[in-house]
């Protein structure tokens, strides 16, 4: 286990430094890192501190958040196919952002886009809670989440449908593919507190999720407060996924694939899987964001497209392997 922790943190650290080193500006690694740490007023410092550092930080945070939320959601639902988007937060956050783009709020108000997305996420989680009730089974939560996701997707399509000019539609579609390009430290400042808060909430669920391995009845009889666990899970997921979607758009498959991939390495224990998936998610997103910049630097390849392109086949392979094991 400690070997896994060591390996994953080394991987994340290496990818983080690589992410700082990759970009269109011709900067040597050491030169860049020197400029980042020492400061000064050259263009290198600007590139490192204002462009690459926020991008790498967002990759680290959002990847970790998505991995953690995916592991928590799978643990709670006891289903390896669950995904943090299942409770409708990413869909409603995307709807908020799309409305901001459509109405011009994103262009006229500073930070209008991420704030509208956060508003959407908040509204979405409120509706899910109202539908599913503060108590109740995991099934009602899934159903409420699917209903809200479907509604948000339909409304998003409606906005696109009624969009009067093709440029706005174009912008919306590109935003929804998810990206970390051109984000600033302000975006980091918006997302960081929420991701941190939600991360702490989700991270505290380990013991309860472990106990849930035996089913809801047995877990409750062992002193796990399921009502509280469910609320912490919903609000924690809403905070991290809402914040992630608000600043980076919809990035799929990280929360789905990473826990699945790491599960055998932590002995399938849901509690341990939480932190492992946080590291794994950070590694996957940093790697994908590096790939975006290296493979087609001139074409603005979208991050969400790459995670889906990598994630979907990987996921199919995992399903195939799971089926072979008869699990």
């Amino acid at each position, binding site marked *: 286990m400690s070997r896994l922790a060591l390996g994953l943190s080394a991987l994340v650290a290496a990818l983080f430094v690589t992410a700082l080193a990759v970009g269109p500006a011709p900067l040597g690694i050491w030169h860049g890192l020197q400029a980042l740490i020492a400061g000064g007023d050259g263009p290198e410092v600007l590139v490192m501190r204002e462009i690459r550092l926020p991008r790498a930080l967002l990759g680290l945070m959002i990847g970790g958040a998505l991995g953690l939320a995916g592991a928590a959601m799978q643990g709670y639902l*006891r289903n390896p196919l669950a995904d943090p988007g299942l409770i409708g937060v990413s869909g409603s956050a995307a709807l908020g952002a799309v409305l901001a783009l459509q109405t011009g709020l994103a262009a006229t108000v500073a930070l209008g886009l991420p704030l509208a997305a956060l508003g959407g996420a908040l509204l979405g989680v409120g509706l899910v809670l109202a539908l599913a009730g503060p108590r109740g089974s995991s099934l009602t939560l899934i159903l409420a989440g699917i209903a809200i996701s479907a509604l948000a997707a339909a409304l998003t399509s409606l906005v696109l449908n009624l969009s009067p000019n093709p440029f706005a539609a174009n912008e919306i579609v590109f935003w929804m593919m998810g990206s970390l390009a051109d984000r600033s430290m302000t975006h980091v400042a918006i997302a960081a507190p929420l991701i941190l808060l939600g991360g702490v909430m989700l991270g*505290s669920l380990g*013991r309860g999720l*472990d*106990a*849930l*391995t*035996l*089913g809801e*009845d*047995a877990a*409750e*009889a*062992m*002193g*796990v*407060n399921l009502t509280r666990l469910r609320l912490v899970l919903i609000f924690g997921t809403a905070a991290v996924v809402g914040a992630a979607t608000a600043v980076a758009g919809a990035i799929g498959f990280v929360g789905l694939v990473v826990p699945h991939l790491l*599960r055998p390495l932590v*002995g*399938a*224990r*849901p509690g341990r899987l939480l932190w492992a998936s946080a590291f794994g998610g950070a590694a996957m997103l940093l790697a994908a964001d590096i790939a975006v910049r290296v493979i087609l630097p001139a074409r603005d390849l979208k991050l969400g497209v790459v995670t889906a392109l990598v994630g979907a086949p990987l996921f199919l392979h995992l399903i195939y392997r799971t089926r072979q094991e008869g*699990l």
Partner: protein
Amino acid sequence: MTLLALQDFAVTRRGRDILRNVSLSVGTGELVGIIGPNGAGKTTLMRAALGLIDSAGHSSLAALSARERGREVAWMPQQREIAWPVDVQTLVTLGRTPHLSPGQRPKPEDQAAVDRALDRMDLLSFRDRTATRLSGGEQARVLIARALAQETPLLMADEPIAGLDPAHQIATMKIFGALASEGKSVMVSLHDLGLAARHCTRLIVLDQGGLVADGAPQEVLTAARVRETFAINAFVQDTPDGLIFQPLDVVT
């Protein structure tokens, strides 16, 4: 000492009385069998007594906080759920959950409790096996070991021996009997009246949501009672080997 006391206990769901007017208490050193036909309310009685579903009347266990209750009673649900392919050691260690404060790792005494439970259930050689890859009966034994590892004064188990082979059925009932002779108590629901007759110190008969008999197996398992409640004719005889109960035919 009373480990469980129910007073005027009742459960109503969707306007239907599932359980009504049940009063009983379980002291130390008892192996209580809860018997009754399908739908009599056996599972409901135990879940409601634990406070897992809403009920009317008083239950001493449901009145406890969730954490205290976890140290007073271990519960093995009928549904044998093992959601993830964890190893047996990990699964049985989950039974120590109520004894650990948040964030605390299992201590040597927790490991000792797990070892005792594995040893009792004859599972020491299964320690590193993946629980989900075991057979149904083996999984049931692992889950019983999990409940034993909780080391509570009272153990409640819903049909724990269903699906076990005869040797392990008898062995499990004997383990429950041994717990009772150590001063703990066990409450099990079961359908095998022969095993109930031989191993339980006390039988509680439920029928249509009501408690119809409560006492030693010899008093409870009479030909008339069995005909009325279970609609079967049975051979019952008190022998030097204990009470022998063998169902013969359905009453038509």
